[in-house]
């Protein structure tokens, strides 16, 4: 296996409803990534593109072929990845494997989504398609509902009074917005007050609107290259030190593990093993906070805090920049936004920028190793990645 690096990274600003197509958004992010490392589009040998719901957003399936054409990629192989919220992460992982194998030297991987084109009722319906249509959606569960059930289960399993947990969850969202307010590419560039969080409407008990990430349009793209090829492209190659991916059945099939997400723990084991690193080595993490409770579950599943204790750690400031682990300095899915098929690439974009020291007032000083973690559906797909400075 050859060493593989991220030679360039691009990302659009994440927004609510906007007029451009997912292909155009992908094009913007790809241009930034390509220009950053000075390659020509015709040097790209394959395209791996995450896209969750183009079929419903723009009546566009098979978007990868038209994206490759739009970018002038001259007939190269192009694949679409649909792994729900983990689509782009699965695309990046496959790009890594293809480059590591020696088949390709330079590949584009990322994702694009125009979720807001659907409107909330249709988006709620289509997002629920990533849970099990036979045994979950029939009962009326939506995505907030999935994580709401995990929140109740978490409170009971770890014997945390719901009121205490709720306050911890508000703090998760307040922290996300604090960083979002400092990220010029975030959808919500404004802070959230405790009062506003408390007053927000209940979506699925116990979760309120302040616990939920928004629907988002946006794209993020990486240039993935072999270490050798990248020498000519960048002075700051970001090494993909470890990757992991795992799957699981619906929530009901995960009964012994919940509220832990078994697929996360399997994937993290792979990432840590491949990189030879552990949770203590990670300085910054971009993890899957689609709902506030999901951030607590992820912090524990990745090994940063013991089970049932990450809410208290958040309250004590241990997940802020300067704390034990810098959590989602981009603002996370909550404040930066969650264009589903692009999210994993956007997480990697933030880690790349953090490792290069380009994040301004939300920079984690001197950070050398970062991690991404992306959860698809109700744990059906889980991908994570460990990135480190390659210079």
């Amino acid at each position, binding site marked *: 296996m050859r060493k593989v690096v991220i030679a360039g990274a691009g990302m659009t600003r994440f927004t609510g409803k906007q007029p451009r197509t997912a292909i155009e958004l992908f094009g913007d992010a790809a241009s930034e990534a390509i220009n950053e490392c000075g390659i020509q589009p015709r040097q790209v040998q394959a395209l791996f593109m995450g896209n969750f719901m183009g079929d419903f957003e723009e009546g566009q399936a098979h978007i990868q072929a038209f994206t490759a054409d739009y970018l002038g990629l001259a007939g190269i192989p192009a694949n679409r990845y649909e792994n729900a919220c983990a689509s782009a992460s699965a695309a990046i992982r496959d790009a890594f494997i293809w480059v590591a194998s020696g088949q390709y030297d330079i590949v584009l991987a990322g994702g694009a989504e125009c979720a807001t084109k659907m409107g*909330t009722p249709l988006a*709620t319906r289509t997002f629920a398609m990533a849970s099990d249509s036979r045994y979950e959606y029939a009962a009326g569960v939506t995505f907030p509902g999935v994580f709401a*059930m995990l929140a109740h289960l978490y409170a009971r399993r770890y014997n945390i009074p719901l009121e205490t947990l709720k306050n911890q969850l508000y703090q998760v969202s307040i922290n996300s917005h604090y960083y979002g307010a400092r990220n010029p590419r975030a959808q919500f560039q404004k802070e959230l007050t405790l009062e506003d969080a408390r007053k927000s409407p209940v979506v699925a008990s116990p979760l309120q609107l302040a616990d939920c990430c928004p629907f988002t349009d946006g794209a993020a793209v990486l240039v993935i290259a072999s270490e050798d090829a990248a020498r000519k492209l960048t002075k700051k190659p970001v090494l993909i030190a470890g990757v992991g991916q795992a799957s699981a059945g619906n929530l009901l099939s995960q009964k012994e593990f919940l509220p832990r997400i078994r697929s996360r723990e399997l994937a993290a084991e792979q990432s840590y093993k491949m990189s030879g690193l552990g949770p203590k080595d990670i300085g910054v993490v971009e993890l899957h906070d689609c709902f506030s409770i999901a951030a607590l579950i992820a912090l524990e599943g990745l090994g940063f805090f013991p089970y049932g204790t990450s809410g208290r750690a958040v309250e004590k400031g241990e997940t802020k920049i300067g704390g034990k682990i810098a959590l989602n300095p981009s603002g996370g899915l909550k404040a930066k936004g969650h264009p589903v098929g692009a999210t994993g690439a956007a997480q990697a974009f933030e880690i790349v920028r953090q490792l290069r020291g380009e994040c301004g007032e939300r920079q984690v000083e001197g950070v050398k190793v970062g991690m991404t973690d992306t959860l698809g559906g109700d744990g059906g797909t889980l991908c994570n990645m460990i990135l480190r400075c390659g210079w």
Partner: protein
Amino acid sequence: MEAKLTFKEYNENLKQGRLSGLKCSSCGEVSAQPRLICAKCGGSQLEALELKGSGAIQTFTVNYVAAEGRESEIPYIVAIVELDEGPWVMGNIGGLKPEEAGMDIMGRKVRMDGTAVFAGDRYSSGEIARPVFRLL
């Protein structure tokens, strides 16, 4: 490997108030959804059985934001029940006002008391039933 229970059979049985499942001949694990292989031990000899429909609530939510086409149903309680035979199933809780559902219902014993049917929409492949439980 042979399918001993199809989704169609499971769904038709459920519509008629019968919750069906599979039991692994090797390890005894019971599944409340059709599958080819035992999730616990990997055994391929599964036998269909009827589940009693009694169990305890593991977790729940009250849903206030509907997906397209299900606006008339909100608010409603979604719950995961661990059946006495072991598997978890998702359904609704009847006979309890949604606004009165709190964490005190977690762990409470329930029994299946009929089913409700999602009529399907333009995206789904027809009617799909789910169990409705009642607190004991």
